[in-house]
C-alpha cells in the first residue's frame, strides 16, 4: 500500500476531507437505553466538541456500540436528550464492513459520494484516488469486494467512510482485521482525513487512542459515566 505515515506534511494531490460546513457541539444528556429488560445505557452524559476525537472505551456489553448507534441516528434513546445532531451529516465505519459484495471497491465508495461528486468519470476518479490512499489499487479496486481479503474489505469500508461528506464520523473498532504491515499507514490516513471533523472512536486498544490523541471516555456498567 502507499506509505504515508507522516500526516503533518499535507499532499496537495490528495482529496480534501469532505466535511460539511457546520461545526457544532454535540451533547448527550442523561441518556438511557434498554433492550427488553436489559439496561444498556443508564444516564449517559457526553459532550463532543467540534473537530475533536473522542475515544469510547470499556468492557464488552457496556454500551459503546449503542452510544454510537444513537449518534448515527439508528436508535432513539428511551430517556434523555441528544442535541446538535439535527441536520448533521454523518458517516461510519461499522463493526462489520457493510459493503455491497457484488460491487467493486470503486462503486462502493461512489455510492456515498455527495451529489456534486457522484456521477461521471470525476466520481470514479475521486473514488479511485480515495482507495489508493488505503492501498486498494489496480485489479483490487475493480473486482467485486466479496473477492477481496478481509483486510482489504476493511480498508474499503474505511475509505468509504472518509470519502463521504460528513461532520461526524463514528469509527466502531475500525482497524480490526488489518495486518501489522498496513495498519499504521491506514491509521495515519484516517487521522489526516479526520482533520476538522468530529469523531468518535470505539476501541479496546490504548495505542489507537494515543495515536489519535483522543479524549478518553470510559463507559462502565450501571448508572452514570466515568471519564
Amino acid at each position: 500500500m502507499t506509505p504515508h505515515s507522516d500526516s503533518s506534511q499535507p499532499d496537495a494531490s490528495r482529496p480534501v476531507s469532505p466535511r460539511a460546513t457546520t461545526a457544532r457541539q454535540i451533547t448527550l444528556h442523561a441518556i438511557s437505553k434498554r433492550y427488553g429488560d436489559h439496561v444498556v445505557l443508564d444516564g449517559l452524559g457526553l459532550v463532543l466538541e467540534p473537530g475533536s476525537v473522542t475515544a469510547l472505551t470499556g468492557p464488552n456489553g457496556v454500551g459503546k456500540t449503542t452510544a454510537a448507534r444513537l449518534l448515527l441516528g439508528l436508535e432513539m434513546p428511551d430517556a434523555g436528550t441528544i442535541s446538535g445532531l439535527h441536520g448533521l451529516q454523518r458517516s461510519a465505519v461499522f463493526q462489520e464492513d457493510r459493503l455491497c459484495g457484488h460491487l467493486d471497491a470503486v462503486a462502493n465508495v461512489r455510492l456515498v459520494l455527495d451529489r456534486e461528486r457522484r456521477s461521471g468519470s470525476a466520481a470514479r476518479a475521486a473514488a479511485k484516488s480515495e482507495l489508493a490512499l488505503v492501498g486498494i489499487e489496480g485489479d483490487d479496486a475493480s473486482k467485486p469486494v466479496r473477492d477481496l481479503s478481509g483486510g482489504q474489505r476493511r480498508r474499503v469500508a474505511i475509505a468509504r467512510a472518509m470519502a463521504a461528506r460528513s461532520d461526524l464520523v463514528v469509527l466502531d473498532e475500525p482497524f480490526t482485521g488489518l495486518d501489522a504491515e498496513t495498519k499504521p499507514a491506514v491509521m495515519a490516513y484516517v487521522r489526516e482525513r479526520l482533520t476538522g471533523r468530529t469523531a468518535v472512536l470505539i476501541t479496546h486498544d490504548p495505542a489507537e487512542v494515543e495515536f489519535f490523541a483522543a479524549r478518553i471516555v470510559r463507559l462502565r456498567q450501571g448508572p452514570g459515566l466515568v471519564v
Partner: protein
Amino acid sequence: MTSTSPDKTGTVTRAVARRIGAAAFWLAVWQAAAVAVHRDFLLASPMQVARTLVNLLPTGDFWGTIGWSLGRIALGFTGAAVLGAVLAISSAAWPVARALWEPAIAAIRSAPVVSFIILLLLWTDSSHLPVFTSLLMVLPVMYANVLQGIAQRDPRMLEAAQVFRMPFRRRLVAIDIPAALPFLAAACRVGVGLAWKSGVAAEVIGVATGSIGERLYEAKVFLSSTDLFAWTIVIVVLSVACERLLLRALRSVPGAPVRAA
C-alpha cells in the same frame, strides 16, 4: 488454458446418460400404451406426434400461431411482474397499501382460473383473454415473492444506506434489487409455467382465433390426439425456453447470485 478433470467429465456424462435413459423409458411407456390402446384418436404414438411436429415446423401458420400466443402470454406475464413489483414495494413502504392490496391478492390467488376466464369473456373479446388471464394468475406469485425479497434485505446494509444518506435509486440498485433477485427468479420459474397454462386454457375456452388454444380446441373437435400431443409439446418447449431465457437475463443483472434460487 482450462482443463476439465476426468472425475467432473465422468459425472456430467453420467448425468446426461441418466436423463436420456429416463426420456427413453417414458417414450417406451408411451409407445407401449399407444400399441395397447390401438386407437389413434384416443392415444397417438410418439412417432405419429413426431411426424405431425415435423410437418408443422416449416409452415408459416405454425409460427404465426406461436407468435400470437407468445406475444399475449408474454404481455400478461410482464404486466404481472411490473404490477406485482409495484404493489409489493408499496406494501413494504406503507401498511395502508398492504392492508388494501392483500385481500385482493388473496382473492385472486384462491379463485378458480375459469371464473376469471368467464368473467373476462363477458368484459372483453377473446383476443385479450390470454393477456388478462395470465396476468391475474401470475400476479399473486410475483407480489408474494417480491414482498419476501424486500423483507429479506440485510438490515445492516439498510442502516449503512441510512447513515450515508444513499439516494433511493442508488439504494435500489445496490441493496434492494440484489436482495430481491433470488425471490424474483423463483417467482419467474413458477410464473412462466403458470402464465402458459392459464393463458392457453383461456384461449381454449374463448376459442381465440389464431391461437395455440384454438389448435387445441380443434384437436378436441376433430378427435385428434396427435395434434393435441404435438401442440402440448410445443407449449411445454415454449414454456421451458421462456423460463430459461428469463433466468439467464436475471443472472446477468449486477448483484445477481451466480445461480439464482
